[in-house]
C-alpha cells in the first residue's frame, strides 16, 4: 500500500505517476542563511530583464522581490549522564514528531564480516525487544500508525519512527527497547537471514543499479590485500550466508551503546520534554564509543578498464563513471558541490541538457556526490541508455567530465548553481523528516550547527575561477572507474573503443567471466559492431 510516506513501484504503470524528470540528485548540503548575517546573492541577478510591461505581461519573465532568508532551525543540545547525546528541533506547525536514534557506526564498521552491521540493525527489530516478541513489536508500532525503520548507511545506523504528537512516549519506549534490550531470538535470526539472502540474490539478478554500484565501490576503494571500509556497497548472498548470530551480538555490544549514539527529534515537542523522556527510557543505557574503522589509502583504479556487469537480454545499460574527489571536511567542499551542480546536479545541469535533452540518449542522467564521513568522497556520473547506444552514452558522459575541468564555467552557470543550492533549501526543509535527517547528518559528519548557513554564505563567494580550480582538483577523471551494467554480448565490443573490457557475473559473486582487449579503432556505433561473446 502506498501512502503519503510510502513508495509505489506498481502504480507507475497502471494508474499512477510517470514523471517527466529523473535526474540524479546531489547530496550536498546547504540551507538558509542565518537571520543576522548580511544579505547574500540569493535573489535573481540585477541584470535580469525588467518586469513585464502593462501592454504585454508576457514580454519578460518576472524577477520577483527579495528572496526569503530563513536560517536552519535552532538545534537544542543536551546529554544524559551516560553520554547519550540529545538534539532537538522544535517546530510546532503540525502535531507530528520525527524520531531518529542515530548510532555512529555503519557498514564501514563491518570489519571482515561484510554485512554484519546491516543484519544486526535489522535484527534489533526482527528478533523482538524488551517485553515484545518480534510480532508484538511490529504490531505495537503499526498500531501507533507508524513503523520502526532501520537504515544502515556507511557511517551510521538509524532507527526511525514518525508519529503524531500524542504517541511520543509510546514510540520512545519502542526505540528504547530496540536499542537497549534486543532479544536476538535464534529462530527469528534464521528467518531474517533467509530473507536477507533472498533479497541479495534478487538484487544481483534484477537491480542493475545495485549490481553496478557493487563493482564501482569495490574498484574505487580497492586497497590490495586489506579491505577498505567503504569497499562494499552492500553484502552479497555469500557474505550473508557466513554471518552468525554470535557475530551480530558482538557487533551490537561494541557499537550500539549510549556513548556511540544520539537521539535526534524534530517536531511538535519541547527540548525539556525530550530530555525528561530520554532520561526515563535511556537513563540506564551503558557502553563506550568504539574505535573508528581504520581508513587505509585506496589504490589508483586499474587503468584503461571498463567493468561490464553482464545482464543478458537487458534492454538498457546503466553506466557509472566515478572518481574519488575531495574529503567531506575539505574547505573547498562548497565549490565541489557547486561544480557538481553545474555538471549534473539538476535540470539546468550540463548532463541533463546535453545527454538527455540534446542527444536524447537517456531518461535519467546526472552526477552526484556520495558523501562519506572519512576520506575522499566519490563523484559519480550516471546515465541509463538503450543497449545499442551504450557506447555513445558513455562517450557523452566522458565528454562532459572532460569539459568540466578543461574550461571555467560561465558566469550564468555559476549564478544559477549558487542560487539553486542556496535557495532550494527553503523547500527542502519543509518536512520534519527532512529537518531530522539534516540534524542527524550534522551529528554523523561532525559538523557544527551553523554549518548549513555557513555553507550557504560560502556559495555566494564563489566565482568562475574558484570553481574552475575545484573542478581541476576534483573532477579531472583522468583515470575514472567505469562500470556498465548491461547485456555484455551486445555492448562489450563497442566499449573496447575506450578501454579493456572485463565482464563480471553479478549472480556468481561478480567474478570475471571474460575479457576483451582495448581497440581504439572500434566504432562506438553498435550497428557496426556485431554481437560478440567475449573470450574467457
Amino acid at each position, binding site marked *: 500500500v502506498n501512502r503519503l510516506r510510502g513508495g509505489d513501484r506498481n502504480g507507475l504503470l497502471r494508474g499512477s505517476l510517470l514523471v517527466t524528470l529523473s535526474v540524479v540528485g546531489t547530496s550536498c548540503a546547504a540551507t538558509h542563511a542565518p537571520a543576522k548575517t548580511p544579505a547574500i546573492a540569493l535573489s535573481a541577478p540585477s541584470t535580469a530583464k525588467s518586469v513585464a510591461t502593462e501592454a504585454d505581461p508576457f514580454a519578460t519573465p518576472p524577477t*520577483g522581490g527579495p528572496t526569503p532568508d530563513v536560517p536552519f532551525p535552532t538545534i537544542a543540545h543536551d546529554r544524559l549522564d551516560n553520554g547519550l547525546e540529545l538534539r532537538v528541533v522544535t517546530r510546532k506547525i503540525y502535531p507530528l514528531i520525527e524520531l531518529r536514534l542515530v548510532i555512529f557506526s555503519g557498514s564501514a564498521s563491518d570489519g571482515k564480516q561484510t554485512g554484519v552491521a546491516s543484519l544486526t540493525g535489522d535484527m534489533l527489530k526482527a528478533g523482538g525487544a524488551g517485553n515484545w516478541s518480534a510480532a508484538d513489536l511490529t504490531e505495537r508500532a503499526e498500531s501507533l500508525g507508524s513503523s520502526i525503520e532501520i537504515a544502515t548507511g556507511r557511517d551510521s545506523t538509524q532507527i526511525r519512527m514518525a508519529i503524531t504528537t500524542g504517541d511520543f512516549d509510546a514510540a520512545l519506549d519502542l526505540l528504547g527497547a530496540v536499542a537497549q534490550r534486543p532479544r536476538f531470538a535464534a529462530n527469528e535470526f534464521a528467518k531474517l537471514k533467509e530473507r536477507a539472502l533472498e533479497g541479495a540474490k534478487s538484487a544481483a539478478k534484477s537491480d542493475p543499479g545495485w549490481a553496478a554500484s557493487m563493482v564501482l565501490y569495490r574498484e574505487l576503494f580497492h586497497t590490495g590485500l586489506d579491505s577498505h571500509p567503504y569497499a562494499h556497497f552492500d553484502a552479497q548472498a555469500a557474505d550473508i550466508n557466513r554471518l552468525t548470530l554470535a557475530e551480530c551480538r558482538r557487533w551490537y555490544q561494541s557499537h550500539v551503546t549510549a556513548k556511540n549514539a544520539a537521539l535526534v527529534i524534530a517536531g511538535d515537542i519541547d527540548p525539556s520534554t525530550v530530555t525528561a523522556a530520554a532520561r526515563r527510557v535511556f537513563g540506564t543505557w551503558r557502553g563506550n564509543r568504539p574505535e573508528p574503522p581504520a581508513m587505509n589509502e585506496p589504490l589508483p583504479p586499474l587503468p584503461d578498464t571498463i567493468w561490464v556487469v553482464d545482464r543478458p537480454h537487458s534492454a538498457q545499460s546503466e553506466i557509472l563513471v566515478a572518481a574519488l574527489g575531495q574529503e567531506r571536511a575539505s574547505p573547498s567542499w562548497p565549490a565541489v558541490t557547486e561544480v557538481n551542480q553545474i555538471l549534473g546536479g539538476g535540470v539546468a545541469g550540463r548532463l541533463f541538457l546535453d545527454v538527455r535533452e540534446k542527444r536524447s540518449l537517456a531518461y535519467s542522467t546526472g552526477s552526484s556526490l556520495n558523501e562519506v564521513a572519512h576520506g575522499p568522497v566519490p563523484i559519480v556520473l550516471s546515465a541509463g541508455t538503450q543497449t545499442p547506444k551504450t557506447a555513445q552514452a558513455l562517450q557523452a558522459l566522458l565528454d562532459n567530465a572532460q569539459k568540466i575541468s578543461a574550461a571555467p564555467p560561465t558566469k550564468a552557470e555559476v549564478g544559477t548553481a549558487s542560487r539553486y543550492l542556496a535557495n532550494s533549501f527553503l523547500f527542502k526543509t519543509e518536512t520534519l523528516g527532512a529537518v531530522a535527517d539534516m540534524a542527524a547528518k550534522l551529528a554523523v559528519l561532525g559538523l557544527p550547527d551553523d554549518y548549513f548557513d555557513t555553507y550557504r554564505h560560502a556559495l555566494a563567494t564563489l566565482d568562475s575561477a574558484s570553481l574552475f580550480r575545484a573542478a581541476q582538483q576534483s573532477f579531472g577523471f583522468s583515470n575514472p572507474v567505469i562500470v556498465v551494467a548491461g547485456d555484455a554480448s551486445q555492448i562489450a565490443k563497442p566499449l573496447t573503443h575506450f578501454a579493456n573490457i572485463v565482464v563480471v557475473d553479478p549472480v556468481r559473486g561478480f567474478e570475471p567471466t571474460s575479457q576483451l582487449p582495448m581497440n581504439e579503432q572500434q566504432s562506438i556505433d553498435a550497428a557496426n559492431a556485431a554481437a560478440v561473446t567475449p573470450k574467457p
Partner: protein
Amino acid sequence: MRSLVCVLSLSSLALLASAPAAFAKDQRTSPSSQPDPAVASLQRFGDSIQRVTLSNGLKVVLNPDSSAPTVAVSVTYGVGSASEAKGRTGFAHLFEHMMFQGSKHAKKGEHFQLVSDRGGSLNGSTNSDRTNYYDVLPSNQLKLALWLEADRMRWLAVTPENFENQRAVVQEEYRMRVQNQAYIPGIVRLGEIVFKDYAPYDHATIGSMADLDAAQFDWVKSFHDLHYAPDNAVLTIAGDFEPTQAMSWVRDYFGSAKRQNVPTMVFPPMPVRPNVGRAVVEDHNARTPAFVFGFMIPPARTKDHYALELASVLLADGESSRLYKELVHDRAVAESVSAWTEDHRGPDQFSVMAVLTDKAKLPEVEGAVEAAIARLREVEPTPAELEKAKRQLRASFVFGLQTNLGRANQLGEYESGWGDATGLASELPRYLEIKPEDVQRAAAHYLTSERRSLVEIVPARSEPGTTMGGKP
C-alpha cells in the same frame, strides 16, 4: 491504495460529530478534552481552501499557508491515458514531456533554467485520469511560476523537432520503467486483461512502444489541441502568498487564454460481468516466480472503494499485515507481498501480488493468497485490526499536509477529478466511517473467484517477452 496519496485533507468540527467510534475514542481519552490536534490541523487546512473559476473556464484553487516561505504552483489538466484512442497510447505522458520544451516567451530550456536559477524545482506527472505540471519556488517567485505556466498553456511549442526529441526520451523511460524492471511487464499485462472490455483503462499510462514508434506528429498535435486548454485545467497555488495579489496575477496571465470547449470525459458504467483471464509472462529480469491477482472494483471515492482500500491495508500494508505475517515471515514462501488499488475515476482495479522465494511453488502461494481473500469475504475483520489500519491512515493524512507541493497537487487532482477541492475535507472521515461489516461485504461482492484475473510471472528461459495465456 494509491488514493491515500491523494487525500490530504480533512475535516471540520462538524465532521467530528459524525466521527466513527475509533475517532471518538481518541477524543474521550484526551486528558484535556481538547480536540484531536491532528484533526484540528486538517480542519485548518480545509478551512483555508478557496475556489474561483475564470470566465474562460479555468478553475483556480488557493491554499494560503505561511508555514514555510515557499509557494507551489500546480496545473492539473483533465487528460490522462484514459483519453487516448486505440493505437495512440502514451500521448498524455508524451505531452508531459513536451510541455517542458519551450513556449512563445520561455524558449527551449528556459523553463528549466529560470526555475533552477531562482532556487526552484519542477516536474510533471501523468496517470490514467489527469496530467499535472508543477513548480515549487521561494515565495517571492510566485509571479514567475504563473508566467511560465500561463505561457505554456497558451503558446506551447508543439513542433516536430520537440516531438522527435522527446519521443526518444520517453522510449528510454519505457525501457527503464518497463523493460528493465522485474515483474512490471506482468503487472501491465494484468491491467490489459482486467480492462480488456473497458477502453479507457485497457492500456498502461506509459503506452506501448509500438504506438510510440508509429506516432505521427499530426496525431500528437491534434491531441494537444483537443485537451490542453483553460476549460480543462485546474490551477492550484499553495503556500506563502497573498490571495488577492495572486488572483490579480492569475487574471493577468491566464484571463485571456482561449476557451476550447474541451469535451467532457464520460466514463461508461462498470461492466456487470468484467472480463477475466489469465496469462503467463516470461521475465528476463525476474529471479523467482511471482503472481498478481486483479479484480475490477467500483470507482474511487465510493463507499465500497473505501472499504476495499482498507482491505488492502489489512492484507499487505506493513509487517503486521495478514499476508506479510503468514507468507513472508512465518512460512518464508514470499520475498514480498503487496496489495493496492489504482484509484480511477471510473471502474478501478484491486490487485494482490506476491514474489516467491526460492523454495516456494506458485500453486502453493496462490492458494494461500486466495485463502486470505476468502477470509476477507467470509469473516469480518476485528475492530482492533481495522482500528490499526485507520490509525495508519490518520497519521498519513497529517504527514501529507507538510509540503506546499503535496497540498497543491492533491487539491488540483481532487478539483479536476471530483469537481470540488474542498471535498478533500471529507475524505478521512469516509475511511474512518467504514465498519468491519463493510469490509466483508465489499470483499464478498467484488473479490470473488468469478471476477479474478491472474498473471503469473516466471523467470525467462529463452527469448524475452514470450506471453502465453487465455481464458481460464
